[in-house]
């Protein structure tokens, strides 16, 4: 079955440093979505990427979707303590019976030291 792998599992950075999490799928994705979950909270939608090679920016966050639509990354520039949380990628499969079902990565837990 499809698997979405996400690395690293944990990342500890000092405030002001950059952070990147990577997501890789065993199959082609229709789109990929990114979520942030604060400790004790629920996943909150950040962005959706649909096109091959797509790059989207939200202030200090940059999201990329690979050319083959199998991998994606989230990069945060100059982290702040408010960036603390777990970042999940979730892929929507391109075709087949599992259309509409999100496959989540395990998440990258980001800790930011002041």
């Amino acid at each position, binding site marked *: 079955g499809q698997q979405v792998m996400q690395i690293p599992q944990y990342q500890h950075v000092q405030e002001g440093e950059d952070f990147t999490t990577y997501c890789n799928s065993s199959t082609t994705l229709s789109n990929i979505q990114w979520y942030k979950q604060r400790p004790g909270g*629920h996943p909150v*939608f950040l962005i959706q990427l649909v096109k091959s090679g797509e790059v989207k920016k939200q202030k200090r966050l940059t999201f990329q979707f690979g050319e083959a639509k199998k991998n994606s990354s989230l990069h945060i520039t100059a982290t702040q303590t408010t960036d603390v949380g777990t970042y*999940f990628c979730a892929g929507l499969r391109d075709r087949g019976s599992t259309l509409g079902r999100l496959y989540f990565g395990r998440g990258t837990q980001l800790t930011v030291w002041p």
Partner: protein
Amino acid sequence: DAGVTQSPTHLIKTRGQQVTLRCSPKSGHDTVSWYQQALGQGPQFIFQYYEEEERQRGNFPDRFSGHQFPNYSSELNVNALLLGDSALYLCASRSGQIQETQYFGPGTRLLVL
């Protein structure tokens, strides 16, 4: 405009008991999916409901069942609870279009003792 709501927020049960969790989708959404998130893991798809029918199902045993009502709200039922069923249960809703964003509710934290 209310987002996705879930009840209860927390629940404690003992092994062998049964539990029902409830979800009201975001206004305008007709598709509801349920996910189980164990501690330290990403959400795992349980099943999805559309037009009051189960449309897709993940790798969960028959102890997990659900229902969708005409007003699009949904219930998740788990029978014969096991310790391993302790998790955060998330409901997500979207409109019928597959490419539409899913919105998650705050979840129900279930603890099975």
